[in-house]
């Protein structure tokens, strides 16, 4: 492995650690301080996974129309992504219909699926607003830093 590859890997590992470790530490602290039971967390994770898979597959399916313009409108990848969307939707319905496996407080499979979709929307808004605040703060700070001048050595 080249030296630059090793350095890149180290940088990525450092970035990943900074992104994940503080959040994990806070979650463990909060769980230790105030949470009695973690029941339902796995259900939320599974519902979010299936909903996100189906939703993102649908979005990627839409982007294939842009791709199709550049590649003489191929049918094969479009069919592949349609199958992917159907697979996600099918798996969601299947697991939701297995009794209490993924069902929460909703009365029917359809209500639970729609509730999952709205919850994904809320999560996306929360993440989007968080990103906007941090990126905006960073950008504003960068733009307000005085421009640097090159210091030449005195002759």
């Amino acid at each position, binding site marked *: 492995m080249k030296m630059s590859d090793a350095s890149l890997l180290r940088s990525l590992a450092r970035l990943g650690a900074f992104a994940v470790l503080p959040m994990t530490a806070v979650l463990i602290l*909060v769980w230790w*301080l105030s949470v009695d039971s973690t029941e339902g967390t796995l259900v939320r994770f599974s519902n979010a996974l299936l909903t996100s898979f189906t939703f993102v597959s649908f979005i990627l399916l839409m982007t294939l129309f842009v791709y199709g313009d550049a590649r003489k409108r191929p049918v094969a*990848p479009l069919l592949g992504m349609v199958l992917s969307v159907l697979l996600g939707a099918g798996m969601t319905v299947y697991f939701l219909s297995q009794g209490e496996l993924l069902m929460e407080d909703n009365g029917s499979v359809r209500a639970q699926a729609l509730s999952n979709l709205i919850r994904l929307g809320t999560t996306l808004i*929360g993440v989007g607003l968080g990103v906007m605040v941090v990126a905006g703060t960073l950008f504003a700070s960068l733009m307000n830093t005085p421009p640097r001048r090159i210091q030449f050595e005195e002759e």
Partner: protein
Amino acid sequence: MEEATQAFVFFWLAGLFVVLGAMLAFFSKVHWQRRLGGALFGSGLLSLMLTPWTLPFSPSSAFGHLLGSLVGPVVLLGVGLYQIAFSGHVPVGRLSRTDRTVGIVMVVVGVLWLEAMHWWVLTPTYPSEVNKYWYIFWPTMLLAVLTCSSAGYAVVGLVGEERQQEQRLMLVAAALAIVLMVLGSLFDGPNVEHQRFATELLFAAADVFGAMVGAAVAILLFAVVLAVYESQQPAPKRLDPPTQEQLNQASQIIAQHVGGEGEDE
């Protein structure tokens, strides 16, 4: 109109308009399509925010109520950060010092507004209890701020030089998010109990991780579908090798230009 039809038109169709409108506005290269995308996005969003009035019978209208509750602080934060950024060292269209001051005030008020929604009486309440989607939004946003600011700290350290001020700012943002999460888990707000907040924080983390894993799997599958399709395409036609006559012509042209004697010498 039946309730189900009303819900379809005012909520789900509007949601589809928001998604398709955003995609058209961002990805289309045609001007009128981008404008159409913006119009679809705006009308869809407006319809979603009006659902507490158009669909008062539907539980989904709580989502529209949350969107409406967030408009104020989001506009303050967005416009405020824009004003601060573009009153800095920008070459063209620089805003005045007053704009910068107004921007700072807007950001502070926006942040205080969001805080007041947890720690004061401004918590979104719909219809008579705390909006259930607020319990998802607020912990998710705090987690996102913490993750982005700590990742931002690492990125600035990796790619920037002498950017200690930005790194300090990222640390402050991360510390603020941590303090808010820990305080929320220890003390009750006027409308939100600390145990409920702590549980919702774990649920929010599960939602975010689940959404990330699901999106990653979908993207991986998308890449596989495209790679399989591309690998099945016939190879592009190769050009014939150059003839002796073409090689002679090329060598003459090269000799004219790399001979070492210019025309002006």
